[in-house]
C-alpha cells in the first residue's frame, strides 16, 4: 500500500494540474481543520436579593465575589433563573434560594465561626443545588514544599490562598492526600529518618500512625468512603500495593509484582485501584480489582495508556477519565485518557507532573517546575495559583 501511495504523491508533485483535475482518493485528503469556536460556559443567571442584618451588606458583597469566582453564575439584576436572599447577624448567615418560578429550593443557616467560612459553605451549597456538582469554595489542596529547608506538607484553597503548614517533622513529610470530606490528611513522615504513613485528623487535631513497617511506606490514597487507604509497603521483601482498613488496622496485598509499584488511586466506585508499576521496562499503568468479602476472584491487568513511562494516575470524579504523568521525550507531561478506552489528550507538557482532579472534574491541578497550576479543562486556560513558594510538588485536590 505504501509503494503506490508514494508513487501517486510523486506524480501529483510532478503534474499538479492532473491532481487538480482528478478527484483525490479519501486516504490522500488532508483532514479539514475547523477553526474552533470559543467555548461558551453554561452560566446560570442569579439575582442577589436583600440581605438583612448587621453583617448583611458585607455578606452580600463577599457572596457576589464567591459566586463570580466559581464561574458558574452570572450575577444579574433582571430575568434571573435563581434568586438568592437571606440575612446575616454577627457572622451567622442564613441563605434562601428560590428558582424563577418562585419555588423554594433551600433555606439554611450557617453558624461556623467566621463570616467568610459560612459564605463559602453557602456558595458551595448553591452550586451543588443548581449544578449537581460540588463547589470549590470549601475544597482544599495539599502539596509538598521545600521552602522551610525540608519537604513539608502544606494546605491551601482552590485559589492558592489560605496556605497553612500542616507538618513540622525534622526530616520532612511527603506524599500527602486528603480524605474525601477534607477532614483528614494521610502522608508519609520521616519520623526518626524512616518513612511511616500517618493520618492527621484536622477536626480533632490528633495524629496517628497507620503503618510503621520495615522498608518503605508511601503513596497513601483514601478510598471514596474514607474508611480505607491504598498505599505502597515493602516489608514483604518487595514493594507491593496494600489496602488497609483504618477501622480494623488490617491490610491486604492487591498487587502481584516483582517490580516497583507506586501511586495507587481509587476509582470512585471503590472497587478498582489504578497504579503505576515498573516491571523492568519503565512504569506502566495497571488496574487491580479490590476483592470483596467472600469473593476471592480479583483481576489485575495492564491498562494501555499509550506511553511507555506513566506514573501518578488518578481517576476523574466520574470515573470516566484518568489523568497521569507521562514522559514524552526527556520531559514529563500531564495526559488525560478516557477510561476504560478512548482517546488521550496531552494537557500540558514541558515538565508538568502529578495531576489531580478538582472535586467537580472541571479543573486539574499539577506541579510544573516547582509552581502549582490549576488548569481549566473547558477553556484550556491555566493559572499559576502558587508561585515562588519554595519548590511545590505532589499536589492533591480533595476528592
Amino acid at each position, binding site marked *: 500500500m505504501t509503494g503506490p501511495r508514494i508513487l501517486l504523491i510523486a506524480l501529483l508533485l510532478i503534474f499538479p494540474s492532473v491532481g487538480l483535475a482528478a478527484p483525490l482518493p479519501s486516504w490522500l485528503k488532508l483532514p479539514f481543520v475547523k477553526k474552533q469556536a470559543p467555548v461558551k460556559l453554561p452560566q446560570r443567571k442569579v439575582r442577589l436579593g436583600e440581605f438583612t442584618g448587621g453583617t448583611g451588606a458585607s455578606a452580600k458583597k463577599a457572596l457576589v465575589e464567591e459566586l463570580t469566582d466559581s464561574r458558574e453564575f452570572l450575577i444579574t439584576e433582571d430575568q434571573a433563573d435563581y434568586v438568592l436572599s437571606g440575612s446575616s447577624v454577627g457572622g451567622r448567615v442564613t441563605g434562601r434560594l428560590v428558582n424563577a418560578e418562585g419555588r423554594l429550593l433551600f433555606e439554611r443557616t450557617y453558624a461556623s465561626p467566621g463570616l467568610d467560612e459560612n459564605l463559602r459553605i453557602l456558595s458551595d451549597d448553591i452550586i451543588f443545588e443548581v449544578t449537581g456538582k460540588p463547589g470549590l469554595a470549601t475544597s482544599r489542596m495539599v502539596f509538598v514544599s521545600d521552602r522551610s529547608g525540608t519537604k513539608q506538607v502544606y494546605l491551601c484553597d482552590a485559589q492558592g490562598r489560605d496556605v497553612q503548614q500542616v507538618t513540622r517533622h525534622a526530616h520532612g513529610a*511527603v506524599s500527602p492526600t486528603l480524605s474525601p470530606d477534607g477532614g483528614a490528611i494521610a502522608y508519609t513522615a520521616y519520623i526518626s*529518618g*524512616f518513612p511511616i504513613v500517618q493520618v492527621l485528623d484536622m477536626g480533632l487535631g490528633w495524629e496517628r500512625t497507620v503503618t510503621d513497617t520495615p522498608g518503605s511506606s508511601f503513596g497513601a490514597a483514601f478510598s471514596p468512603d474514607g474508611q480505607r487507604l491504598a498505599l505502597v509497603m515493602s516489608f514483604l521483601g518487595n514493594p507491593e500495593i496494600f489496602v488497609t482498613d483504618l477501622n480494623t488496622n488490617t491490610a491486604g496485598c492487591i498487587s502481584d509484582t516483582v517490580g516497583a509499584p507506586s501511586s495507587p488511586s481509587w476509582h470512585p466506585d471503590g472497587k478498582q485501584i489504578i497504579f*503505576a508499576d515498573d516491571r523492568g521496562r519503565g512504569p506502566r499503568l495497571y488496574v487491580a480489582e479490590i476483592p470483596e468479602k467472600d469473593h476471592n476472584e480479583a483481576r489485575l491487568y495492564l491498562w494501555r495508556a499509550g506511553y511507555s513511562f506513566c506514573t501518578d494516575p488518578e481517576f476523574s470524579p466520574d470515573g470516566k477519565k484518568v489523568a497521569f504523568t507521562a514522559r514524552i521525550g526527556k520531559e514529563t507531561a500531564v495526559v488525560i485518557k478516557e477510561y476504560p478506552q478512548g482517546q488521550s489528550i496531552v494537557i500540558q507538557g514541558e515538565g508538568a507532573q502529578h495531576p489531580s482532579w478538582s472535586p467537580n472534574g472541571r479543573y486539574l491541578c499539577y506541579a510544573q517546575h516547582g509552581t502549582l497550576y490549576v488548569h481549566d479543562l473547558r477553556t484550556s486556560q491555566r493559572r499559576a495559583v502558587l508561585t515562588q513558594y519554595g519548590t511545590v510538588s505532589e499536589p492533591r485536590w480533595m476528592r
Partner: protein
Amino acid sequence: MRLFLLAVGVMTGLCSCTSVPSPFQEREADIVFALGAREGFKSPMGNSLKPACPALEFLGTSFALTGAHRKVLTELAAEWKQEKPRYLIAGYTPPNFPEDYARSLSERRAQAVRQAMIEKGVEAVNLQTVGFGHDSAPSGPTTGVVVIYKQ
C-alpha cells in the same frame, strides 16, 4: 539419516514440553525474604553514617544488578563474615523522576541489593532497606545510587 530423524524427533518433543524454558520467557521473580524488625537501625537522615562500600550506581530506570555491583557485594559479604555488622541499604534517585515512582524505584533497587547480599551469605536479619527517592535532597545523594551504610 535415521539418526538425524531421531534427533529431530527428540528435539521437537523437548521443545513442545512445557518444562523446557523458552529463551523469550520473562525473567522469573527473585525469591524474596520479608524484612526483619527495624528496631535499632539508624537512618542516614540526621545521623552521620559511614558507607560500607562505594555507592552502587544504577542507570535509567533499571533495578537489575550488574557484574560490577556483584563484585562489590561479594567483597562486602566476605568482609561481613568477620565482624557480622548490620547494614542499612538506602536507595536514592536523581530529582528528575516523579516523586512516588522515585521512592518505589529506589526501594526496589535497595531490595535487589539486599537479595544479592543474602545470596552471598549475609544473614537477612542484619539487612534493612529504605527507599528515599529524592526526599533526602539536598543533604543526601542526588544521583541514582544505592548506598550501604554500616550501623
